[in-house]
């Protein structure tokens, strides 16, 4: 007998027809999913994030739709964008005319032969149910291939938009392959309206000496569920730097997994701004498998209302990975008494010559900082708002695309009531 609330959501999501392409991949995922149910808080990995609200809902496959994307365009990325609406490629909203020759940036549905790398990021055990659900049912997705030694000057823009008139499920998919010595900036955004479940999966291969900078913006609807998986494989001397900015969704979970080879570098920075009843969970896994790689994580959350943030930062340093340098910081600002943060580093170190540091802070604003600002003439409210803004904006300082940085700062300003303080950029 089981006391767990059971749902038939997994079976329901799999009930629709299996898309034709990548049959073996999908079949394997379906096999893993057979008999599975949503995790409950009795699963160690989901201890602090309750999916009960999701279990009570029912989602249909998302129909094709058209949306106005004019509000999402960024001037630096005119002609380098692919847009997906409800998981389907939107050819009329997309424009890849400025993508340099040699770079391949197209929907998966157009070129299945180029996607042989799909599903090939080694990940030890599977990242889990939501990755498998995506693999079993994704409709389309983006493929990015950057050839050897090409340094792409313009950032590429991926827009995933969900328009849900009734509850729908979408499974965005991204495959990024950077060949040896290449460089790319990628902006990935998720927007939407209505009640929906989105389970994006992003797979990344960074070859020797290649560099990927990846900005990720989650602005899903306040009624949406966003359960994302990211897996990056960084080869010798390669670099992967990502920044995940979570603003939306009723419940979101990010699972970035990064595997570093010799001398590789990775950063996984994050910012979550939460209010009301929002829940944002980040379960990261930084896996040092070879010597002399370095990793860096700065994860910040601002939690207001009855919202809740969860951070579990797993770092594994394999026996071979001597000379590892791994830093992790989780900093959390609580703006209300009912807000809650659960943060936990999880270090598994099997090599002896390593530098690993981690730290976590949870609290309110520092009275010394408030006093400093007040002593310059800002009233208590302005001082609080400015410090809250600064706490968040700190993560945005190095966003490379100026118009995106500006837009994000404005968003943070609005969410931290710092708007009344004027232009702070």
């Amino acid at each position, binding site marked *: 007998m089981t006391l767990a609330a059971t749902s038939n959501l997994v079976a329901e999501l799999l009930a629709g027809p299996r898309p034709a392409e990548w049959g073996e991949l999908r079949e394997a995922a379906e096999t893993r999913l057979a008999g599975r149910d949503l995790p409950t808080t009795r699963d160690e990995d989901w201890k602090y994030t309750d999916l009960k609200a999701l279990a009570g809902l029912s989602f249909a496959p998302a129909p094709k739709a058209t949306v106005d994307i004019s509000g999402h365009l960024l001037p630096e990325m005119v002609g380098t964008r692919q847009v997906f609406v409800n998981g389907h490629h939107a050819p009329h909203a997309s424009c890849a005319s400025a993508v340099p020759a040699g770079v391949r940036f197209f929907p998966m549905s157009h070129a299945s032969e180029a996607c042989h790398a799909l599903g090939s990021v080694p990940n030890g055990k599977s990242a889990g149910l939501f990755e498998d659900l995506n693999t079993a049912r994704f409709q389309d997705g983006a493929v990015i291939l950057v050839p050897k030694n090409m340094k792409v000057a313009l950032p590429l823009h991926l827009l995933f938009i969900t328009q849900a008139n009734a509850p729908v499920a979408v499974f965005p998919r991204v495959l990024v392959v950077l060949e040896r010595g290449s460089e790319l900036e990628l902006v990935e955004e998720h927007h939407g309206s209505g009640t929906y479940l989105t389970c994006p999966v992003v797979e990344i291969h960074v070859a020797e000496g290649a560099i990927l900078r990846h900005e990720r913006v989650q602005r899903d609807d306040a009624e949406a569920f966003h359960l994302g998986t990211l897996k990056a494989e960084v080869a010798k001397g390669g670099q992967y730097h990502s920044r995940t900015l979570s603003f939306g969704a009723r419940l979101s979970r990010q699972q970035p997994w990064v595997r570093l080879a010799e001398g590789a570098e990775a950063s996984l920075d994050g910012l979550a701004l939460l209010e009301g009843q929002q829940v944002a969970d980040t379960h990261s896994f930084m896996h040092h498998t070879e010597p002399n790689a370095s990793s860096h994580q700065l994860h910040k959350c601002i939690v207001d209302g009855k919202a809740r943030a969860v951070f579990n930062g797993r770092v594994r340093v394999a026996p071979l990975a001597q000379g590892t340098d791994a830093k992790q910081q989780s900093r959390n600002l609580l703006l209300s008494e009912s807000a809650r943060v659960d943060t936990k580093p999880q270090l598994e170190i099997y090599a002896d010559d390593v530098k690993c540091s981690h730290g976590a802070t949870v609290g309110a604003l520092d009275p010394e900082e408030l006093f*400093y600002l*007040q*002593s310059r*003439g800002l*009233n208590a409210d302005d001082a609080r708002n400015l410090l809250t*803004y600064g706490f968040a904006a*700190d993560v945005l300082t190095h966003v490379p695309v100026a118009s995106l940085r500006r837009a994000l700062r404005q968003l943070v300003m609005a969410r931290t009531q710092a708007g009344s303080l004027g232009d*702070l*950029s």
Partner: protein
Amino acid sequence: MLSIKNLTASINGTPVLKGIDLEIKAGEIHAIMGPNGSGKSTLGKVLAGHPAYEVTGGEVLFEGQNLFEMDADARARAGLFMGFQHPIEVPGVSNASFLRLAYNKKAEAEGRDELDPLEFDDFIREKIKLVSMREEFLDRSLNEGFSGGEKKRNEILQMAVLEPKLAILDELDSGLDIDALRVLGDAVNKLQRADRALLIITHFPRILETIQPQFVHVLSGGRILKSSGKELAVELEERGYDWVLEEAAAGGAR
């Protein structure tokens, strides 16, 4: 300008100031000196309105107004400024936008025109010359990653932007090399006018060679033990503080 009468204050129930009397008039420069732990930094923080300190007695009038009826920010807008011994770092907020915000809050309080970002840009470019600050420090986050000396430079820049009536400078010389000390000392002197006053809090007399006070007070054990002219600073430089403490003890007044 500032009139302190029998001021007592405590932190976490422990008395730190035990009856301070001090009169500062417009145009004057006063120095408060004393050994470590004497309460001199506390005096600055109490005057600036630090919330951790409780005023337990006495009275302070600033330009005729009861200082303790004003919050820290109201004191600042009324023309009181404290240069911090350890300025706070605020990541994510650019130095320039913070300075403009502070300037405009004060301008608003005084009924003057606020400056938009372009106007402020011209204004601040002039001000940074006064403290020999490089322009890149305007774009960086407020004090973040600044060296001790750069932070002090930024404090005096803030003073130059806000043009306070009374500036309290707490250990301005700590973390400064000789050249930076001279630059900042000169800047403070240029900002001093007949309608303004300065209160310099310092352990070491060195800074008083550049910013020359008319009045020097020795604070110890939460009380002012001795007040005199600037020659007292020279004597303290030569003889240290012990003799003042001994003299006070021998006086047996308390």
